[in-house]
């Protein structure tokens, strides 16, 4: 995978040959081996893998999903073009698809009801402040899409947590005569449920009331199947674990993404959730619930596998993945936010250089000793 990231975007122009100058010797820097994999090809496959998510998003949120995706992608491309212009570079990087991938990932991690102009700003910030200022593709410290999302989260806190019911849910709600504008995410419900269960256990005088509230939330919570296909409140493209799994498996089988990070993330989440369930008891959901809700599946396959922000070494990728999984669960169960994928990725991005230094592979034959 690392070789793929190192492939230059465009082949260096062949040196001008003087006629009759005899054989020419070229001295060039490593890597000397290269294959036909290009940035553009990789990005195209990632976009292809995101299509199932996009289809589900279109089904769940209809036109909103399309408008949001267009807004973020345009934002990313505009920022990329401006950055290229400011740095006096060619506009070739517009065509390599990396800005489009960033835009799509960002769009998929936004609530459907957010104003398109905010989505546009998020896309522009993602590319301008997280990628271009560090020197463009391959040089960014943090995942651009997640930086864009973090920016929007601080910038428009109200809009970023206003989740709307999906189209099928709306039909269902209308049939029941409920006119719902907002909709809780499964993780928000889980957090609230845990809170009430805890309160009921602590506050004996009002235990009855808290227990009733907890049960009300319990009744509203989606079933496993509903969670798995994604017919729940949440961000545009993250709700469907099934679609993320299809796209993710495609990436892993095509070797575009390393399997270590997604497996590590899922393992970290399952391990943490099982332990929490055993220790924490009633307020904690079934581990599968945590696996299928929020941005987890989408993030494990599409965000944690970003080449640039994750370590290059195999052991490092394991550590990266497991730590992301554990951090996600830590934030979900103990943090102020119901979902923590964005923060987990950003924190681990910051630790990536350390992990890499820690897991440098031993050279064949051992280190040269002094």
């Amino acid at each position: 995978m690392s070789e793929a990231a190192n492939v230059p975007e465009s082949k260096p122009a062949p040196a001008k040959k003087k006629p009759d100058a005899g054989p020419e010797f070229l001295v060039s820097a490593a890597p000397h081996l290269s294959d036909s994999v290009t940035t553009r090809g990789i990005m195209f496959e990632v976009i292809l893998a995101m299509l199932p998510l996009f289809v589900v998003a279109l089904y769940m949120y209809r036109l909103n999903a399309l408008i949001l995706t267009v807004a973020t992608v345009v934002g990313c491309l505009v920022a990329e073009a401006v950055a290229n212009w400011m740095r006096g570079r060619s506009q070739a990087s517009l065509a390599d698809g990396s800005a489009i991938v960033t835009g799509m990932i960002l769009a998929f991690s936004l609530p459907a009801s957010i104003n398109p102009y905010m989505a546009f700003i998020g896309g522009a910030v993602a590319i301008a402040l997280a990628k271009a200022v560090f020197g463009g593709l391959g040089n960014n410290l943090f995942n651009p899409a997640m930086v864009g999302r973090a920016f929007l989260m601080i910038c428009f806190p109200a809009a970023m947590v206003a989740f709307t019911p999906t189209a099928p849910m709306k039909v269902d709600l209308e049939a029941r005569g409920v006119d719902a504008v907002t909709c809780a995410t499964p993780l928000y419900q889980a957090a609230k449920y845990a809170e009430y269960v805890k309160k009921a256990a602590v506050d004996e005088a009002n235990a009855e009331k808290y227990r009733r509230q907890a049960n009300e939330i319990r009744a509203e919570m989606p079933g496993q199947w509903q969670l798995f296909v994604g017919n729940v409140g949440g961000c545009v493209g993250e709700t469907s674990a099934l679609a993320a799994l299809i796209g993710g498996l495609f990436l892993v089988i095509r070797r575009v993404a390393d399997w270590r990070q997604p497996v590590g993330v899922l393992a970290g989440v399952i391990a943490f959730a099982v332990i929490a369930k055993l220790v924490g008891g009633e307020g904690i959901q079934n581990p599968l619930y945590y696996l299928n809700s929020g941005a987890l599946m989408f993030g494990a396959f599409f965000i944690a596998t970003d080449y640039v922000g994750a370590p290059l070494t195999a052991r490092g990728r394991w550590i990266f993945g497991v730590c992301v999984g554990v951090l996600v669960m830590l934030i979900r169960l103990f943090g102020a936010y119901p979902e923590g994928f964005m923060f987990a990725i950003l924190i681990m991005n910051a630790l990536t250089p350390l992990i890499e230094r820690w897991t440098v592979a031993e050279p064949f034959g051992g280190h040269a000793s002094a």
Partner: protein
Amino acid sequence: MADENGSNLRQFKEGVLSNNPVLVQLLGMCPVLAVTNSVENALVMGMAATFVVVMSNLITSALRHHIKPHVRILIFTLTIATFVTIADLTLKAYMYQVSKQLGAFVPLIIVNCMIICRAEVVAIKNGVGRSLADAFGIGIGFTLALLILGVVREWLGSGTLTIPGLEPFHVMPAAFTENGHNWVIMILPPGAFLTLGVVVAISNQIRARHAKGGAA
């Protein structure tokens, strides 16, 4: 004397533009980042700093033949502290609300490296006229940079522009803040860093173009 005046003018211009303390030298970042969340705060902070740098340059330059080199830093600091105290008490007396918002950042002008830098680099070596021209240039350059940050941050963050002594001026329609379209991040610390970065990038870009144009 004509030459002297010319060089004074150049010294002044340098302070405002090519040697701007905030955008070029990146000195005195603490108040730049901390108090530019509104135009009013930025303007008052800029004027207070200008007052201090002018007075400190004036005194240091006038006494430059009497200051022993090994105690000069002490003298600078005492001079600056005196005028910072004057500025602080004046603000407290006449602009109490603003002074409360600026909080510790007015007293902190004492340790603003931009001001001690002017005393060390210019005032201790040059005559009063040149030192004053330099101080005004640096002070106004500082104030302008703060104003740019203040305008951007307040405009995007609150949708208003507050000018000292007047009602806040609503630049954006009321729906901007009511519907949560205002960029909350801009009035928070991250907004200061981001805005400063972008403004410095733009100023570098302009200076690079300018330098290229001059060379060609």
